[in-house]
C-alpha cells in the first residue's frame, strides 16, 4: 500500500502549519499590517507545502459509511461487503443484473442425486493477484478459517448447512478440519451438506465463503488486510485506504475475468452525510451513489421526480417485535389484536413516502420466486373481539406499556406515533414511546428488555429462508421469546425438500403460522432502495432485490 497522500501527509502539512504559526505569532507583534499580508502568503504556502493531488480514478463511487472491516469473513455491513466482494471472491459471485449467484472461481459443479454433495470444478486460470494459482486447498483453508470460532466471524452461521459446520462453530467439534469440504485434486472440491440446501449456491456468493490468502493471514494476523502487496482473489486489489476518506482499488491483472473488469482504478468514497454525498454527485465529483442510506429522505419528494434517481424493491422488511415473555403480550390474542389495527397504507403514504410496499408478511414479495401468504390485515372489529376475549374489553385494565425504537432518525418515532394513535383510538389502550440510542436499543432487544420494539431485517440471500429462519425456537435472532414446535418442524421439513414448489408451500404454511397464529411480529412494509445514477454517465448498474452492484461491471461512459 502506498503511504498517505495529500494533506494527510503529516510531515509536509505540519511543516506548513509550523511556518504558518510562526508568521501568525509575528502578526500579533508589531508590524501588524505587513504581517497580515504575510498571513495570507503563509496561508497559501502552508497549503502548497502539503498538497500533491491524487491522479484521478476511472470511476468514483460513494459507498456510504466508513467500512468497519473489509475482511470478507468478518464483515457484516453492506458497505463493507461491497469492498470485500471487490477484493475477494468465492466459488460463485453475484450477477450484476439479477443479483443471483453465477459462477465465480468455480467454473462448474455437479450435485449428487440426494442433493447433499456438491463437486466443484475450480477454474484452471484462477489466480491470486500475485500470479500464484488458486487451488482447492486455498478454498478448504479459507472455509476452515471462517467457521473456526476463534476467527469470530458473525456470519459463520452460514456454514451450518455444511457438514459439521455448526458443531465446529459451537465448539462441540474442536477440529475445523472436520468441516464437510475436501480437495479431491488441485482443481476439484467436494462439499458435503447436512441437508439438501436449495439456496446453497446463493450462499456461496456471500463474503463469508470468499477465498483468502493463507500465508498473509498467518504472517500479519489482524492487520493482514493492510499488509503490503496483499494477495487478492477478486477482481480488484487494494491500492490504499484512507480512513473516512476513500479506498482506492486497482484492477487485479491476474483475475480470471480481468478482461471484463470495466474500470481500472476505482475510488470508493466514505462519508456519512447524505446531503454532502448528493452535492458531490450533483457536481460530478462522484459518478454513482451506490448506498441507499446516502439518500437524503427530506428531499425525497423532489428527488423522486428526477430521471437519474431509480427506485427498486429491496430484500428488507420493517416490522414490530412483541416481547412474548411479558404480560399481557404472552397471549397471542393480544398480539393479534394489536396487529389488526395498524393502517400500513397511512405509514407508507404519509410517513416513509419513498414508495415502500405495505406488507403484512415478513418475506418481501418476489424473494427467490416465492409468494408470501397474507398476514393480519386491518380489521378493528376482530381486534376488539380478540382483546375482549383476552380479558381487556374496550382496553379496560390493559397495563401501560412502551414502544422502543432507535432514535437516529425521526422516521421510527413518526411510525411509533401513528401506531400509538391506532391503539388508543381503536382499542382504547395506552402506549408510551421510548426512544433509545442505537447500542442501548440492540442491548435491550437481545436481552428481551422491551414490550414492543421497532425492528427490521435485511435478507442475506435470495431465498425466503433468510427471513423465516429468524424465528426458529433456537434462532439467535428470534429475540421475541416466541417458541413454536410446529413452526420449527415446518421450516425443517421445507429445507429438506429438494423440489421448489412443495418446498415453497411448506415455507408459506410456516410463514402463515408465524403471522396469523403466533404473531410474535407484525410486519409493516418491505423496504425500497434508491440509487442515484445518470445512465448517460455510468453503465453496468442494474437494480435488483439483493442490492448487489459488483464494481467490476460498472464503468463511466466517455463523453
Amino acid at each position, binding site marked *: 500500500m502506498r503511504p498517505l497522500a495529500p494533506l494527510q501527509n503529516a510531515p509536509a502539512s505540519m511543516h506548513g502549519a509550523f511556518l504558518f504559526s510562526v508568521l501568525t505569532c509575528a502578526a500579533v507583534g508589531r508590524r501588524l499590517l505587513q504581517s497580515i499580508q504575510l498571513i495570507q502568503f503563509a496561508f497559501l504556502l502552508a497549503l502548497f507545502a502539503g498538497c500533491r493531488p491524487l491522479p484521478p480514478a476511472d470511476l468514483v463511487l460513494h459507498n456510504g459509511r466508513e467500512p468497519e472491516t473489509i475482511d470478507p469473513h468478518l464483515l457484516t455491513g453492506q458497505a463493507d461487503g461491497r469492498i470485500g466482494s471487490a477484493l475477494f471472491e468465492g466459488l460463485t459471485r453475484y450477477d450484476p443484473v439479477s443479483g443471483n449467484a453465477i459462477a465465480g472461481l468455480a467454473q462448474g459443479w455437479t450435485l449428487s442425486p440426494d442433493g447433499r454433495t456438491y463437486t466443484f470444478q475450480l477454474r484452471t486460470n484462477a489466480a491470486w493477484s500475485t500470479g500464484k494459482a488458486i487451488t482447492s486447498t486455498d478454498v478448504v483453508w479459507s472455509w476452515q478459517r471462517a467457521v473456526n470460532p476463534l476467527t469470530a466471524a458473525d*456470519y*459463520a452461521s452460514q456454514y451450518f448447512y455444511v457438514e459439521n459446520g455448526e458443531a465446529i462453530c459451537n465448539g462441540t467439534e474442536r477440529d475445523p478440519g472436520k468441516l464437510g469440504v475436501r480437495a479431491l485434486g488441485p482443481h476439484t472440491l467436494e462439499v458435503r451438506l447436512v441437508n439438501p440446501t436449495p439456496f446453497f449456491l446463493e450462499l456461496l456468493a456471500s463474503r463469508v465463503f470468499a477465498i483468502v490468502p493463507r500465508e498473509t493471514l498467518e504472517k500479519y494476523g489482524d492487520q493482514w488486510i493492510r499488509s503490503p502487496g496483499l494477495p487478492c482473489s477478486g477482481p480488484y486489489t487494494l491500492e490504499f485506504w484512507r480512513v473516512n476518506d476513500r479506498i482506492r482499488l486497482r484492477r487485479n491483472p491476474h483475475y480470471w475475468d480481468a478482461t471484463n473488469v470495466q474500470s481500472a482504478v476505482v475510488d470508493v468514497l466514505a462519508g456519512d452525510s447524505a446531503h454532502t454525498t448528493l452535492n458531490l454527485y450533483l457536481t460530478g465529483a462522484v459518478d454513482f451513489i451506490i448506498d441507499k442510506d446516502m439518500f437524503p429522505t427530506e428531499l425525497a419528494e423532489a428527488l423522486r421526480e428526477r430521471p437519474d434517481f431509480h427506485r427498486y424493491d429491496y430484500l428488507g422488511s420493517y416490522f414490530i417485535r412483541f416481547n412474548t415473555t411479558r404480560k399481557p403480550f404472552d397471549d397471542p390474542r393480544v398480539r393479534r389484536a394489536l396487529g389488526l389495527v395498524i393502517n400500513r397504507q397511512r405509514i407508507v403514504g404519509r410517513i416513509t413516502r419513498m414508495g415502500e410496499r405495505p406488507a403484512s408478511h415478513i418475506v418481501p414479495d418476489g424473494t427467490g420466486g416465492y409468494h408470501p401468504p397474507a398476514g393480519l390485515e386491518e380489521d378493528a372489529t376482530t381486534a376488539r373481539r380478540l382483546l375482549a376475549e383476552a380479558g381487556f374489553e374496550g382496553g379496560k385494565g390493559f397495563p401501560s406499556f412502551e414502544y422502543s425504537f432507535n432514535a437516529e432518525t425521526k422516521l421510527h418515532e413518526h411510525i411509533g406515533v401513528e401506531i400509538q394513535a391506532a391503539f388508543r383510538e381503536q382499542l382504547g389502550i395506552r402506549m408510551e414511546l421510548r426512544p433509545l440510542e442505537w*447500542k442501548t436499543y440492540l442491548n435491550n432487544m437481545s436481552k428481551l428488555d422491551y414490550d414492543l420494539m421497532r425492528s427490521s431485517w435485511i435478507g442475506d440471500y435470495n431465498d425466503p429462508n433468510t427471513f423465516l429462519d429468524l424465528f426458529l425456537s433456537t434462532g439467535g435472532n428470534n429475540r421475541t421469546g416466541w417458541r413454536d414446535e410446529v413452526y420449527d418442524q415446518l421450516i425443517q421439513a421445507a429445507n429438506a425438500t429438494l423440489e421448489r414448489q412443495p418446498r415453497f408451500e411448506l415455507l408459506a404454511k410456516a410463514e402463515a403460522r408465524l403471522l396469523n397464529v403466533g404473531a410474535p411480529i407484525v410486519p409493516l412494509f418491505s423496504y425500497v432502495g434508491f440509487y442515484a445514477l445518470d445512465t448517460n454517465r455510468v453503465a453496468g448498474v442494474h437494480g435488483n432485490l439483493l442490492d448487489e452492484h459488483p464494481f467490476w461491471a460498472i464503468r463511466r461512459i466517455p463523453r
Partner: protein
Amino acid sequence: MKLIRRLLAIPLLVWIVATLAFFLMRAAPGGPFDRERAPASREVEAALQARYHLDESLGRQYLRFLAGLVQGDLGPSFKYRHHTVNDILAQALPVSLTLGWLAFGTALGIGIPTGFIGAVHRGRWPDWAGSFLVLAGVCIPTFVLAPLLVLIFSLRLGWFPVALWGSIPQVLLPTFALGLYFAARVSRLLREGLSETLRAPFILTARAKGLGEFELLLRHALRPSLLPVVSYCGPMLADLLTGSFVIERVFQIPGTGAFFVNSFFSRDYPLMVGLVIVYSALLLLLNLATDFAYRWLDPRTRHA
C-alpha cells in the same frame, strides 16, 4: 520553575481525565460488539470478547490500558478492526490540525484588521460595516453557514468543490466556514480593547509628544489591546485544532471530529479514550501557552 511545575501537572491531569473516560465509557449500556445480528454462536462471541480482553475484570482491563498508555500504545479500535487507535490518530489528527491552524489564521487574519479598523474609525461607517459582519459571524451557527457557503460558492457559482479534502480549493471553504465565528469574536475583543486603550492617559501623553498616528497605534496602543485576544487564543486554538464535527461532516473531511462523536455511539472504548487523552493534553498545553504569552505581553502580570 513555575513552567516546569505546570508542565509536570499535565500528565497527572491527563491521567485523571483518561481514567474517568475509561470507566464512564464502560458504564454506558450495550457493548462494542452488540449488533443487529446475533453472533453465530456463544463461542464466536466469547472469542471476540477474549480477543479484545473484554472478558477480563474491569481492573485488569484498566491495568492493561495503563501499561499500553505508558508505552504510547492506545490499543486497537473496536469498530475499525484493521486499525489501531494510533493508526487512526496518525491519519486523522494531521487533517484536523491543518484545518484548525488554517482556520486560526483566518480568524486572526480577518478578526484583527476588522477590529482594528472598527476601533480607529469608531462610530463611522467602517465600524458599522465591521460590526455587522461580526454580528453575522457570531449569530450564524456553522451548521447553517457551511451549507450556505456550499450552496452559494460551490453549487451556484461553481468556484469551489463541494466537499472532500486534498487540494487547495477544497480547503478554502471549510477553513472560512470554521474560522468566521472565531474571526468575529477576535474582532469584537480587539475593537473593545483598542477603544479602551485609546482613551488611556498614556496615549494622550504620546500624542502630546508629537508621535505619528501610525506609530502611536501600532507601537503603543495595539500591544496592550491585544491582551484579551491573546487570552482568547488558547481556548480558540484548542477548539479549532480538535476538529469540528459539523464542518468535517458537511465537507466530508477525514479529521478527528467525526470519530469523537461516533466512537461513543459505537462504544469504541479505546478510540474514545485515545481521543479524550489527545484533546485534554492539547487543551492543557494551549492554556499553559496562553498564560505565558500573557505574561510576555503584559509586564504587570509578571510581578503580580
